[in-house]
């Protein structure tokens, strides 16, 4: 039974993404726009970073190369957002406004699954590629040569980093979904999800670059620290078990919260015409 359901969701996903990709590829000009946007944003970010560094200064105890890893992770997650989160979750608002959420709820499939995976956009790929390149470059520069000769050390760093990056993606998804489900009450939180994009910009810099008060906010209220700083520390081989565990717990908690909140929200949903 469980396996059958899994197969059903798998085949749905294939159909979803096949049709979504076909629709998106109708606008090939977007690829160029996205590519320019990614490169321009990267150049600008590097420029601002170079203003903050320079003359032997560092930022919150992070070297230039280590800060590049953080920036790379930010770019990567931004690409993930453009690929999956933005195309799907910014539509929830529209569904509530026009009442088409009714049709989603009637489908014999989990509504959160449908709303979170129905669309996919290839236009986040440039950011993902550039982000991975930046991470690779920063790591190659920041990691001492002798570490590379120890496959065990490299492997464990990458594994933990990947694990924490997945936790970061889960946190990011949950935050987006939580905000998007608010539209059940406020109906027109048009692009409210964009707010997240602007506040999460803080993740471009290691969290220790901020004053202590903001650091606390970026850890507990708006978990920016778990998005980029913690995975970057793991990749650089200086992860603290406490932060890693905190990151995984935050991921589990926010995922559960998004699920519970959605079910709570649905109980308050009163369709468009009622």
């Amino acid at each position, binding site marked *: 039974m469980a396996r059958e359901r899994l197969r059903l969701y798998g085949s749905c996903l294939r159909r979803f993404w096949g049709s979504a990709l076909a629709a998106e590829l109708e606008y090939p000009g977007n690829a160029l726009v996205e590519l320019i946007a990614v490169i*321009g*944003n990267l150049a600008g970010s590097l420029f*601002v970073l170079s203003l*903050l560094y320079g003359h032997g200064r560092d930022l919150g105890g992070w070297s230039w190369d280590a800060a590049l890893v953080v920036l790379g992770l930010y770019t990567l997650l931004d690409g993930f957002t453009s690929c999956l989160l933005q195309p799907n979750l910014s539509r929830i608002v529209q569904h509530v406004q026009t009442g088409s959420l009714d049709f989603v709820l009637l489908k014999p499939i989990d509504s959160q699954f449908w709303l979170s995976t129905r669309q996919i956009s290839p236009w986040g790929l440039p950011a993902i590629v550039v982000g991975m390149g930046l991470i690779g470059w920063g790591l190659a520069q920041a990691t001492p040569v002798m570490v590379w000769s120890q496959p065990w050390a490299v492997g464990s760093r990458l594994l933990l980093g990947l694990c924490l990056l997945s936790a970061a993606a889960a946190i990011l998804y949950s935050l987006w979904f939580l905000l998007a489900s608010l539209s059940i009450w406020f109906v*027109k*939180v048009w692009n409210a999800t964009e707010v997240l994009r602007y*506040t999460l910009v803080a993740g471009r*810099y290691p969290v220790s670059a901020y004053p202590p*008060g903001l650091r606390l906010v970026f850890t507990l209220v708006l978990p920016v620290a778990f998005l980029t700083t913690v995975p970057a520390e793991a990749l650089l081989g200086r992860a603290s078990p406490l932060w890693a565990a905190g990151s995984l717990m935050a991921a589990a908690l926010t995922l559960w919260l998004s699920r519970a909140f959605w079910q709570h929200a649905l109980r308050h949903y009163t369709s468009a015409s009622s």
Partner: protein
Amino acid sequence: MARTWGRAPLRRGVRVARALLLSQYAYMLEYRAEIALWALSGVLPLIMLGVWQGSGAAAAAGITAQGVARYFLAAFVVRQFTVVWLIHVFEEDALQGKLAPQLLQPLHPLWRYLAAHVAEQATRVPFVALMLVVVLAVQPDAIAWQAPWRLLLGLLAIAAAFVLRFILQTILTMACFWSERAAALDRLMLIPYLFLSGLVAPLSTFPPAMRELAAATPFPSMVAFPAALLAGEPVAIGAGFATTAAWCALLLPIALLLWRAGIRRYAAMGA
């Protein structure tokens, strides 16, 4: 209708503006939850304030810690009241044919959008004030108390910056007549705006070549000039206003020409 038209055009203008602003304000109040979120999304200068305060880079460029705080707080206010979202609304209106009935009215549709922006800014005021209070509770020296005339000039500079941004985005928006996904262009324009306007770094920390490059674009007029004025920094007031006005004078005819060309080929859905 014809009789009221016969009256002094000025009086008609005042009446139309009043009606537009009041109706748009009522409309925006309906969506105050959304606008509160939008106000919250303008925190970028405050985030950058945190970064710059933690770094020695500002001191190396000869800016005091207090100067950094004042500049970014002013930039935050400027950003809040110069937000332009014309292209996103217009794209939808043009695609869905909502523009067609507007074209029948004896009023240039852009006025309606302009009124919507002004009304949205008015709705923002309480939220921005609240955020300012929070910041000032943490950093009481971040505000630069100004002589009333300078404050007034600062507000005028914000208004001028808004008009310039509105005109610039109108030019981009006209691409909606030729493409279905013109809003993507705004993403591109956002990049030089972000990095050259002084929103994320004071222009005085730029290397000289980059500073000259930025000065050759309209972007510093949109943030750096009004923010410096509000922060009480020594700034060439006359030259700043003249630059903003010159950019407006240069861009406005382009926007209007494109509007005319675009409207000629506009065919709404189903037409």
